[in-house]
């Protein structure tokens, strides 16, 4: 029983990182109606950027976000303008291929510069922990979780308390209508993509501290992120966050109670089960559009 509780706590803590990464992905979908298959690769890129700052300049991985988040934001804006914006016909399918190509390119470059050895960002405090009863929690997990909460909070504030956030929400709701009321949809899209990348940078740091990674790690990551955002309902931030937490808790509990080999399977079974009842996901567009 304690083991199940431990797994649940761990699931919530790691779920926070997935919530952050998935919210960037679902935001991009909401604004642009494209699936960014390269999101996993960009998270890994973020992890490598922080790794380099930590290894070469001894900058604390959490502090390094001050550098990597703006860098990734700018990179996101550039990627959107150069590769996504020119797509006019068949956007949905072509964007999958374009972002997939971007992911391959990033994987190749990372492999070239870093080889494919598995890495992990290790801070001096990474094995420091505190006890809760029989069980010990690593501080790194707590810091990572708090960081994710803070960034998610900032995104919500931006979306619901600023004019620009209003423009983003309007674009998510109805792109054409937003254009008609004078919102520069192209600009909103570029910035939303940039924000998505900045969250990928932050997710990358936490992922890089709690997981080993190499340039090929993005395949596994993106399959999980896509499952999460579909489960939550494409384009729903709230859905993505809840789905991430639920999925990770269930996965970790399955791992200790049944077997780790079935943990990811349960992940997909839940997706299928939910979609059978609600093809639009937990907080899907169909619901929101009715509101």
């Amino acid at each position, binding site marked *: 029983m304690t083991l199940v509780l431990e797994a649940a706590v761990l699931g919530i803590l790691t779920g926070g990182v997935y919530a952050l990464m998935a919210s960037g992905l679902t935001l991009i*979908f909401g604004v642009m*109606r494209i*699936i960014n298959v390269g999101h996993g690769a960009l998270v890994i890129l973020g992890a490598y950027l922080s790794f380099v700052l930590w290894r070469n300049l001894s900058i604390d991985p959490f502090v390094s976000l001050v550098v990597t988040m703006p860098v990734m934001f700018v990179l996101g804006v550039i990627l959107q303008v150069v*590769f996504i914006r*020119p*797509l*006019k*016909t*068949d956007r*949905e*399918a*072509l964007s*999958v*291929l*374009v972002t*997939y*190509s*971007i*992911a*391959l*390119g990033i*994987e*190749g*470059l990372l*492999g*070239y510069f870093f*080889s*494919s050895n598995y890495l992990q960002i290790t801070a001096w405090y990474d094995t420091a922990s505190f006890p809760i009863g029989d069980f010990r929690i690593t501080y790194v997990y707590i810091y990572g979780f708090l960081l994710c909460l803070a960034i998610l909070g900032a995104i919500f504030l931006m979306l619901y308390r600023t004019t620009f956030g209003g423009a983003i929400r309007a674009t998510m709701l109805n792109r054409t209508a937003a254009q008609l009321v004078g919102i520069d949809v192209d600009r909103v899209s570029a910035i939303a993509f940039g924000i998505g990348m900045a969250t990928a940078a932050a997710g990358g740091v936490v992922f890089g501290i709690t997981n080993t990674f190499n340039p090929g790690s993005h*395949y596994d990551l993106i*399959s999980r992120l*896509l*499952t999460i*955002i*579909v489960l939550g309902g*494409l384009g729903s931030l709230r859905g993505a966050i809840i789905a991430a937490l639920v999925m990770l808790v269930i996965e970790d509990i399955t791992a200790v109670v049944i077997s780790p*080999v*079935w943990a*990811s*399977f349960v992940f*997909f*079974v839940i*997706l*299928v089960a939910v*979609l*059978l009842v609600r*093809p*639009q*996901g937990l907080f899907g567009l169909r619901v929101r559009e009715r509101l």
Partner: protein
Amino acid sequence: MNRLRDKRVLMAVGLVAVLTLTLVLPAISPESATTNMAVFTLMYVGLATAWNIMGGYTGYISLGHAGFFGFGAYALGLLLARLSIAGGYAPFLFVPVAGLLTGLMAAGVGWFALRTRAATFVIVTIAFMFMLQLLAENLTSLTGGGAGLGFPNPPWRGDFFNIPFYYAMLALAVLGLAVSWSIRRSKFGLGLLAIRDDEDKALAVGVPARAFKLTAFVISATLVGMIGSVYGYYVTFIYPQFVVDPLIGISMVLMVFLGGLGTLWGPVLGAVILEPAQLWLAYNYGASRLYLVLYSAVFLLVILLMPRGIIPSVRDLIAERRASAPAARAGAAP
């Protein structure tokens, strides 16, 4: 009229020439390095053509076809093991059975997955692929799990080994093309294209969209399953992560888009360009790790410059030329 007939004759001659060339290729160049590359190229010609039947004609993008590929491979491997079939020509007889089993499975998957549309459908197909991969990994007593599943070893030695596989892949590619061609010319094919253009409108004019989509999905998966089963026999050892490989799934899609989505010959062209290029790049430049970058750069360029693929873009170009010089053309026609 005349020009149309000339064009037809020209195309028929071209087709026969290409077919003859592919039939005699192993005689011209029997080295196993060449035939090996040819086996993989034909495999992707078949896969891309099969994917196009669903993705190209109906517009439903499946990124999970690697699941059917792997399922077919496991189906054949397990059949051969259970029935104790020895290596040789006999296993090829079971390829259609593996295809049929894949089709059955696809009917179940499709029934569920086709409740969703667009982006959700894309992701659901990915999820299904990973579920199949995990099942192959976890049902250890059936599939052998991570230790892999072995196929009977064919008795052929030396360069001859690849040749039966070459003809098996060729037969499947031709079968796929024949199916794709006949669908395009049928009422069923028209229905599929209507779904691609506007599903709600298609429903309104009486196209049984659900049944049509499901049929296309099952046909496509059956072909992919058969090809996967031959692949499994060819590499003799299959593992969950290599046979249900997302890269295989995405490669078919890339090839179709490169050649021309929804066209008959686009997938063939895409496969013939990309697969040898990829094998060659990986062999010669793989060690420098930059081949992935090169591959992605070429692809981004193609998508940005020719978003509709090579065949439609070239066709447009020719039509434009023709339109600008109609008089000259008409005069030249005999």
